[in-house]
């Protein structure tokens, strides 16, 4: 931090520049959403842009809409490019780097980073980067989520940082490699062009802003923003009581070996610093739910941002945080450990941070979110053309001191909207037979969790089905006395009945003839507060609405309804008293 420089900026200019810079990044996001090809970017907003420090790669400015997990991970991606440039020593204006290496600042192979230097008078001023989830990049399973992968080579093609553009000239050889390695090269080509559009726009807008305010002023503003985030984060940590708060949770299995894997956290608050220590978490596993150290740090950042929403998104927020991430654990995996299912592990990791902070600060207690991405792909051939329907599904969020959890929401790592049924049915040979809320899926509580969903789909052509999900064996947890939610379930129709995967929420190589149905039932969110303190009228209403069954009202909430659905007051009071003992 450079006091002399940041002090030179008056508070008005600082506030104005904050708005102007964030607007540039927001506009880069919007440009990609509108011009991207695959719905995972265009509808689900699985993308992110930002400005990064020329030397350290630290995040300087982030937009309001970037996919949360990418916001945390991008600095590592820029660092990977910085390392590459140092090695090769040939950075030039007009270069644009492209890569998807998950061990070197990436997340999983589908996420393609484009990193572009911004030069001013021949000097590197900052980095600009764009990341987007491409639809398919090879591997054994269309869409990339291969639950059976034991090496990243089975998940798709891995590209280290290479120059896509060299001094402003497109390298067609790189394009040829990309084209040859995807089931849907046109979609990837469209998305890459969208990312290039976004970077081009960023360079143009930044140039104008630098001309208006001067390079030095903007550079000092960057410093001041990070310092401010750091100060806000320190203030937030200081408000927590000193002490250690432990919380752990498990993943069902890695898709290969049916053994639970644990994510353990001890969060220690000391003054205005916090240590997140993951010692005791399981060793790296065979299947694809490992994450690299950089992804772990990025996920911690996402969790903290959800808890401390006032702290702006830049590198400053992480300065007061120390990390202990055991090498070789599922949270510190190295190549070629498979990582395609990284979303599941970071969701569990974000959950344990919520669980630990709930002990430190009851006002920030959040019931566990549904906690699985449920990456479902249905693929095959329609009129001789290959189709890949690939989507993530929703579930309930946890209850909080403020309210019940949100029904059918997205995960904390994403802001993606779900594609409409009608868009999917118009594009792919499938028919949805159910798209509804799932009764008794929410964790009971004074404020119950949000309700999960039931999605049922009928194949109209012979189809290959693959699912990578979680929460089939350990439910989303409740906090402050709240109860756990329902677990994840997946079924497919057979000639005689229904079957479920042996690995609970993970399956591949499922071949269904036309006219068969699959059904996904997603978890709700964990409850907040003792369910026996939930107002009886609200429990009754939940029964009327079909969110809570009469049986659960009695078992979980101690509310007894008679056959007409009216509250049996005497029985309820005595039941609640009995429970309370």
């Amino acid at each position, binding site marked *: 931090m450079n006091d002399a420089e940041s002090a030179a900026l008056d508070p008005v200019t600082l506030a104005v520049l904050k708005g102007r810079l964030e607007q540039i990044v927001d506009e880069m996001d919007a440009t990609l959403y509108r011009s991207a*090809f695959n719905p995972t970017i265009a509808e689900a907003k699985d993308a992110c842009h930002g400005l990064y420090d020329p030397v350290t790669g630290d995040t300087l400015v982030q937009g309001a809409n970037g996919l949360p997990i990418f916001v945390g991970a991008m600095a590592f991606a820029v660092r990977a490019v910085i390392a590459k440039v140092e090695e090769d020593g040939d950075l030039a204006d007009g270069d644009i780097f492209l890569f998807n290496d998950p061990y070197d600042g990436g997340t999983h192979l589908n996420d393609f980073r484009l990193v572009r230097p911004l030069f001013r008078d021949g000097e590197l001023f900052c980095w600009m980067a764009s990341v987007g989830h491409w639809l398919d990049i090879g591997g054994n399973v269309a869409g990339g989520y291969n639950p059976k992968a034991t090496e990243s080579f089975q998940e798709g093609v891995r590209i280290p940082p290479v120059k896509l553009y060299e001094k402003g000239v497109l390298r067609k050889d790189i394009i040829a490699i990309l084209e040859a390695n995807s089931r849907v090269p046109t979609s990837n080509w*469209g998305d890459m062009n969208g990312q290039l559009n976004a970077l081009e726009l960023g360079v143009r807008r930044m140039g104008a802003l630098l001309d208006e305010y001067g390079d030095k002023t903007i550079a000092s503003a960057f410093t001041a923003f990070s310092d401010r985030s750091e100060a806000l984060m320190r203030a937030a940590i200081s408000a927590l009581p000193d002490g250690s708060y432990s919380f752990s949770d498990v993943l069902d299995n890695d898709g290969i070996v049916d053994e639970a894997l644990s994510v353990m956290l001890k969060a220690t608050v000391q003054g205005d610093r916090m240590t997140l220590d993951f010692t005791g978490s399981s060793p790296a596993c065979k299947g694809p739910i490992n994450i690299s150290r950089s992804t772990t740090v990025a996920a911690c950042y996402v969790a903290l941002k*959800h808890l401390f929403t006032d702290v702006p998104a830049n590198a400053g927020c992480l300065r007061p945080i120390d990390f202990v991430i055991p090498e070789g654990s599922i949270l510190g995996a190295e190549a070629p450990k498979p990582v395609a299912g990284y979303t599941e592990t970071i969701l569990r990791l974000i959950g344990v941070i919520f669980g630990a902070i709930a002990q430190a600060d009851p006002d920030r207690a959040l019931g566990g979110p549904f906690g699985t991405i449920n990456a479902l792909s249905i693929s095959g051939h329609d009129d001789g053309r290959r189709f890949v329907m690939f989507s993530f599904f929703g579930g309930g969020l946890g209850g909080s001191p403020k309210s019940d959890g949100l029904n059918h929401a997205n995960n904390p790592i994403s802001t993606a909207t779900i594609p409409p049924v009608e868009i999917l049915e118009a594009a792919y040979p499938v028919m949805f037979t159910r*798209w509804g809320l799932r009764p008794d899926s929410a964790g009971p509580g004074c404020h119950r969790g949000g309700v999960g969903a039931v999605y049922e789909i009928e194949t109209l052509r012979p189809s290959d089905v693959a699912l990578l999900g979680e929460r089939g064996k350990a439910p989303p947890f409740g906090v402050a006395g709240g109860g756990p939610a329902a677990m994840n379930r997946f079924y497919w129709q057979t000639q005689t009945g229904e079957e479920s995967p042996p690995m609970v929420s993970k399956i591949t190589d499922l071949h269904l003839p036309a006219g068969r149905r699959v059904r996904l039932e997603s978890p709700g969110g964990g409850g907040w507060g003792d369910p026996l303190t939930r107002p009886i009228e609200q429990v009754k209403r939940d029964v009327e609405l079909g969110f809570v069954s009469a049986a659960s009202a009695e078992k979980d909430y101690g509310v007894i309804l008679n056959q007409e659905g009216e509250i049996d007051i005497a029985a309820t009071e005595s039941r609640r008293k009995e429970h309370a003992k």
Partner: protein
Amino acid sequence: MSNSTGGSVVGVDVGGTFTDLFHFNETNGTFSTAKVPSNRGDEAVGFLEGLTSFGPLTELASIVHGTTVGTNALLERKGAKVGLITTEGFRDVLEMRRRDRRATWGLSGDFIPVVPRDLRLEVAERTMADGTIRTEVDTEAVKAVCRELIAMGAEALAIVFMNAYANPANEQAALEAARSVWPNDHIVGSASILPEIREFERTSTTVLNAYLQPVVGNYIGKLEHALAEGKFDGKFHIVQSNGGVMSTEMARTLPARTALSGPAAGVIAAAAIAREAGFPNVVTGDLGGTSFDASLVVDGKSMLAPQTTIDFGLVIRTPMIEIVTIGAGGGSIARVDAGGMIEVGPESAGSRPGPVCYGQGNDRPTLTDANVVLGRINAENPIGGKLDRLDVDAAKAAIAKHVAEPLGLGVMEAAEAIVRIADSKMGGAIRLMSIERGHDPAKFAAVPFGGGGALHAGALIKDVGLKAALVPRYPGVTSALGCVIADIRHDQVQTLNANLNGLDIEALDARMMEEANHARAIVESARLAVERIDVLFELDMHYLGQTHTLAVPLPAEVKDGTTGVTVDLIRKAFEKAYEASFSRLLPNIGVRIVNLRTAAVGIRPRFDLSALAAPKDTTVEGALLGHRDVWFQGEWHNTAIYARLDLPEGAVISGPAILEQPDATVVVDPDLTARVDNFGNIIMERA
């Protein structure tokens, strides 16, 4: 057709606090205005009181109304009890939304849908994406669920079937069956409201129409009754969110289209005033208590957005004047956060308790407090007329405590900082609308309307690099004026899902003619004088594989029973629009038409805005009220104060100066010049 009325037309804009009226006598070209208190819950009282101030109702030829009654019912959740019937398996679409949440960061908060789950029932039926019917609807089952809903007290009915945009037959059969048992006319089907792909948006829009039908219907009924009692026998119309006028019958059927009625009328008037004054490209700005609403007008035309979100999860998909709202209004609270940054808004003291200087109990400084402390607002004679004077000292103390001291600034510097940060936020909204859409701000003028905008319009010239600012003669009644001059408009959409390669162009032409004739008939049935009716076509298109679409205006005109549309014309229009938005075309990839949008616009007789001109027989000296100290750019300036309405046509005033009028204050910054043009507007430009 010509303007045959020759009587008087009145625009009525009912706002939260006041009802503004603009009365124009078409025979002799004179006008007058009125402002009366709104009577929340019984708006007809203020409405009538305002109207009768112009004389007997029998002398009025036409009344055009901008209303927020629908918006308020949505925000306060005071609509009808609606029953919803859906395809089996899909009753929760409305509550599941698009799986979004309120904010990117932070996970708390829930969502209560306008139709609770027990009033959402299902029937077996299924239409496929290609329009084929897989399962026919059982009309007896429809009747049975209707009876269930009636028994539960449903007052209005919405029916939404999957893929009804592709083939509405099942939905129409269900509607017919429902009509045979439903006790009233409040029955809405999704394919007639919005035959467009995307089930959540269609469900939400359909349900919100049903939710508002009884509310808006009762409201219009009450007004019509009161008008009839006053022997009014002219025409009564409603402004819709697209900035056009519709009949009261249409407003009763499609009440969700009134959601932005008042603001849209304001934008229409601002656009018309600016166009007449020689500024076809403008950004309008309405500064209220909690927010600043900006809207873009290019070549005299306001920009339309395809949908709007009234509140989390309340989506209305129908073309609306695009308004960007940011949380910076007069009541926005200024504070310094733990990281040492000044923030202005989005937290707001609103109008109650309001700014500190109102003395109504708030002690945290607002934008209005900063304007008062800087001397920009006249503390002795506040606009609006509700308060006698404003408490400058209290405002100063609040700024000192909450902004100046934490930052180590003087109180005046802190007040100026608050104003500049608010200016910059407003500038951000304008940049978002202009620069981000590829427009050069140097070609645009800012047009503030409402009471507060003119305080900041001059600063926006500098902040965004605008050409000028134009303050209409009566900023407070701009929306009411907009009601008088708005054209009649009807918008329609139809999803086509057709590839450009192998397109059946004759079928498309026939479809376009059908849509055009339908839209035109609705405009004609409004029975207002129009000079001509224009039909506009737009296609939502994309490259095969993309999901977002691009609005592609088609240069096609209805003539001799055909639109003259060709594949080549469509392709060229698409490439032109795509290149303008994204700079790179993607040859070799197929192109697809998703939706056809058709609008019919009945052009109203031109309103002669020179009726608003300033007096010619007054003098600048005569308009001078005196001088007071006003703080600009770090120091006090002895600043001339003028009575704005007394300034003669052609007057030129050099900044710094303050121009006061009963409903607005215009600040002319030191490096700006203000002049009065031929239409009574103040034009501010760089000196």
